[in-house]
């Protein structure tokens, strides 16, 4: 199949889509392709990538970051049913204060506050991330969640102040991907940011949004759909030309030509047409990336038997290749790691409990940090990694685990991150690390926290770093951002 023809066709479709979906901003992404200097007004230089690490199922993030001072830890421990103990308190969900050699590995200080309330410790599984925090390259955003507007418990009683379908996995995940609680959409803030920044990418065949974890709403924009790749890289298509087409006449090339003919045909059925389009894109991108990806090696060894690490290893290779080949000035990656819906076995589930999951996250992200380091890709300042998860969980135990909550803790790290501190003030009525008493004013009775920072604010901060800076663009992607006190939390 002719890559150029494919590209032209997509380009024309993109223009048509832009024309119907409105507005000059939607048109800009493709302008570079018709050689106009207009695109220069948005030209982004250098290279930057966002990497979304989605922890699916609802990460119990109040056990990722825990108060270390005795007074607050006692409140936390009481709400969580006491410190877990397999024989003495199997229903308890609290982590013990670190002791002995664990103290320097786990404890951290919040540079934004002083005294007892600046003392925290991180889950014992997160030693690598704790070290990055202490190097001031990892920041926490505290009590983040979907919000329509800043609210308190009293405001919650008015239902129009509530995001739709709180506590539902699928709905809350969608709200995280959209960063917009007031209008259902198939599009996400990553894809819409991609719409804005992609005009600066030299290679328009390669989407600015790349998923190593399948379909996701986060990376869908008006002119951007994620390129979905497997963590095992690119595999040839049996019995066909790889890359396609191949020269000479052979049974293989005859089959290959037939396949390309059916993928390039037009279909009256949109279902068939969409399938053909995705398959055809797969063939184009195999052609574009296969040889380069095979030749791209990393000095860093990623841990085996860790699906998140496998995904991030592929991301690292793609970042290295994209920079070497100058494919892109801006990229947005999506990886995903599941199993966090720990209603049962949160503390005691062997190789699938919270500690085990976080250990895998830590090992995967630690290896990724190494790969970005000076001994390998050397792109730490150009890459920002951030976490997302549909909700945190109830502080209160159900006897074996925790249930669905609302606001929680997220982290971002990278060379550009202003780390070593917590970001907990979104300019609204709720701020600071929350009071974790079950009877505190901004919690529901089982310890589901009303967020102080909206997903919009968290996402907009990251999008601005990437290069989505025009107020009109931000307002288009994050229409509710103006409801909140701050449109940039400043952590990156």
């Amino acid at each position, binding site marked *: 199949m002719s890559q150029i023809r494919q590209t032209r066709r997509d380009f024309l479709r993109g223009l048509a889509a832009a024309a*119907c979906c409105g507005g000059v901003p939607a048109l800009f992404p493709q302008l570079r392709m018709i050689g106009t200097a207009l695109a220069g007004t948005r030209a982004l230089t250098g290279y930057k990538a966002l990497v979304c690490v989605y922890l*699916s*199922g609802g990460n119990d993030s109040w056990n990722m970051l825990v108060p270390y001072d005795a007074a607050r830890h006692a409140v936390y421990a*009481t709400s969580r*049913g006491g410190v877990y103990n397999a024989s003495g308190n199997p*229903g*308890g969900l609290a982590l013990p204060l670190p002791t002995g050699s664990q103290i320097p590995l786990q404890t951290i200080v919040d540079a934004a506050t002083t005294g007892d309330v600046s003392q925290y410790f991180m889950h014992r599984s997160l030693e690598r991330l704790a070290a990055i925090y202490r190097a001031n390259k990892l920041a926490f955003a505290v009590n983040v969640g979907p919000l329509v507007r800043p609210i308190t418990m009293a405001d919650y009683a008015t239902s129009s102040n509530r995001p739709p379908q*709180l*506590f*539902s996995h*699928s709905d809350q995940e969608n709200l995280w991907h959209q960063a917009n609680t007031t209008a259902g959409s*198939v*599009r996400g803030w990553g894809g819409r940011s991609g719409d804005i920044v992609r005009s600066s990418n030299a290679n328009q065949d390669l989407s600015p949004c790349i998923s190593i974890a*399948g*379909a996701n709403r986060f990376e869908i*924009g008006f002119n951007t*759909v994620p*390129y*979905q*790749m*497997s963590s095992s890289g*690119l*595999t040839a*298509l*049996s*019995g066909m030309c790889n890359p396609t087409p191949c020269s000479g*006449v052979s*049974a293989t090339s*005859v*089959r290959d030509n*037939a396949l390309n*003919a*059916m993928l390039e*045909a037009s279909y*009256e*059925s*949109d*279902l068939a*047409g*969409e*399938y*053909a*389009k*995705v398959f055809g*894109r*797969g063939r184009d*991108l*195999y052609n574009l990336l296969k040889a380069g990806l095979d030749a791209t090696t990393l000095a860093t060894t990623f841990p085996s038997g860790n699906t998140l690490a496998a995904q991030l290893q592929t991301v690292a290779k793609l970042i290295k290749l994209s920079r070497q080949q100058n494919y892109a000035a801006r990229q947005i990656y999506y990886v995903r790691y599941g*199993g966090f819906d720990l*209603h049962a076995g949160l503390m005691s589930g062997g*190789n*699938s409990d919270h500690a085990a999951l976080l250990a895998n996250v830590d090992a995967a992200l630690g290896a990724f940090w190494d790969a970005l380091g000076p001994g390998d890709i050397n792109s730490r300042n150009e890459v920002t990694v951030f976490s997302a998860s549909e909700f945190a969980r*109830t502080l209160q*135990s*159900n*006897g*074996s*685990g925790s*249930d*669905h909550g609302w606001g929680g803790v997220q982290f971002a790290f990278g060379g550009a991150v202003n780390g070593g501190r917590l970001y907990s003030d979104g300019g609204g009525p709720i701020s600071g690390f929350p009071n974790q008493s079950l009877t505190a004013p901004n919690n529901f009775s089982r310890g589901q926290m009303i967020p102080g920072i909206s997903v919009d604010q968290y996402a907009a901060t990251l999008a601005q770093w990437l290069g989505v800076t025009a107020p009109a663009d931000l307002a288009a992607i994050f229409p509710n951002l103006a409801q909140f006190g701050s449109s940039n939390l400043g952590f990156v």
Partner: protein
Amino acid sequence: MNKLLRALSGCVCACVLGAGTLQAAVHDRIFRYGFDPASDAPANANEAARFLTQATFGPTQADIARLMALGYDAWIEEQLGKPATLSQPTVEQVVNARTAGGQNVGSMQRLQRWYWQAAYAPDQLRQRMAFALSQIFVISDQGSSISQYVVPMAGYQDMLARDAFKPYRTLLGDVTLHPMMGRYLSSFRNQKAGASTSPDENYAREVMQLFSVGLIKRNMDFTPVLGGGVPIPTYDQTTITQTAKVFTGFTWNDAPTSPSPNFYGGGQTFAAQSAPMACWGTELFPATGTGSNNMRHDISAKSVLAGLTIPAGQTCAQDVGDELDIIAAHPNVAPFISRQLIQRFVTSNPSPAYIERVATVFDTSYGDLGDVIKAILLDNEARQAPVLTAGDSYGKLREPVLRLTAMWRAFDAQPPAPDAYGEVKMTAGSSLIGALAQGPLQSPSVFNFYVPDYQPPGALADAGRYAPELEIVSESTTYSTGNTWYNFTARAYLGMSNPPVDRPLVNLAALTANATAPAAMVATINQRLLYGSMSPMLQATLTGMLINLNGASAAEKAWSALYLTMLSPDYATQR
């Protein structure tokens, strides 16, 4: 009369007669009561094949003939009366033999049997319905809580097959009490509130969000009921917390209750791991005083769905029964379940009127799932595809698993002989889930492989259309599914040298017979895989390919045409 027949066959099934006797009895009944077997017969073999593409794991030549002879109604009635082909007994035998032989045991044993049943079980509609139900009432071996429970997971599949045509309320009860569901959504060993704990909300939430009513109130045609212009939630967080109390006290069926009660005991046999969970409520132990420490069920009053209250002081069985009765009686259930079943069998975008017609049958039959599937398949919107024009979104993307099974059945694939442990291998040494992004009881989460409301970006989303199965179609999975089709065609046909013994071998004879007549070979594929719907473009492409493959063997021509068809957008969809 149909109901009577079904009830009769259920009774016979539960008694001692063998399957052969049962089928004969049903046939006798059907004909004695004077069906005109051909009065509603498909107009031609292509129409029959199209129906069977919707209703089974793929049309065979024999099924097409049977359907043509009986007509739609009698064919469905015959299928509704067929007893369930079961997985658990076979899987258990193989697992035991492998264990005795020092071989590892895992999901592969369940999967081999499942694919065998999909390809060969005579109760095709029942098995297909069980597969559809397994995508609503999801449990999965991708979750660590049950991944090692291979045999009882096969039992869960069997339970879905047994209940496939029973009342919805029966199915909901069996799902709720199955220990694999209990473990998957953690109602297993869930307990009443303690000093610092509340009951686990997992099952309470998902049974309402996913298995019955959904998040917002629906009309019978599935459109949202609006209040002040916005959808109305069916329940809130308080309902969840209250309903969680209902699902407390469950443990293994054989956890010892006397003389030394052990809530954490039992579950050491396959039988116990498959039997409905016991509930340690007041039916077993006193609410107060001596022995009350073993009463694990929450007996306080519960404010549940639809503003109803379950009174305090009931047994666990009463509480669970009341709760499931309340859920099953909710007006959302009929449109919510009907729409998803229509999506699995016929079309991703049913008209509101179609949903309402099926939902009405659901309601008037008290949720009889046999009546519901019949209504889905015989509806005019299922039987008559609209004329294909640009922007069409009728029909559905074929599920990857169904693309494989339909090819097997269309081309008479022959299974290998059982191995030394009695296992018939079907999957070419792979679990297939990685390549297909779909597999029986292998969803990544309780939200299935795809959600009913998935809208792929582009034309479909712009038109407000849904295409659940496209959620697992990607640049990556088009390749991995394609390579799977290659392994099951080019590397799996009768007569090849050194044939593999870990997968069925396709019979290419109907194609190789026309090795020098490309158009005739394409016509056979068109009839068998695409019920005559192959586009002129694809016919021309395949014919041209076969002409250009003039140096290839007859077998290579045949598998090339088969492989390319399986890769085609035509075959990826069904209308």
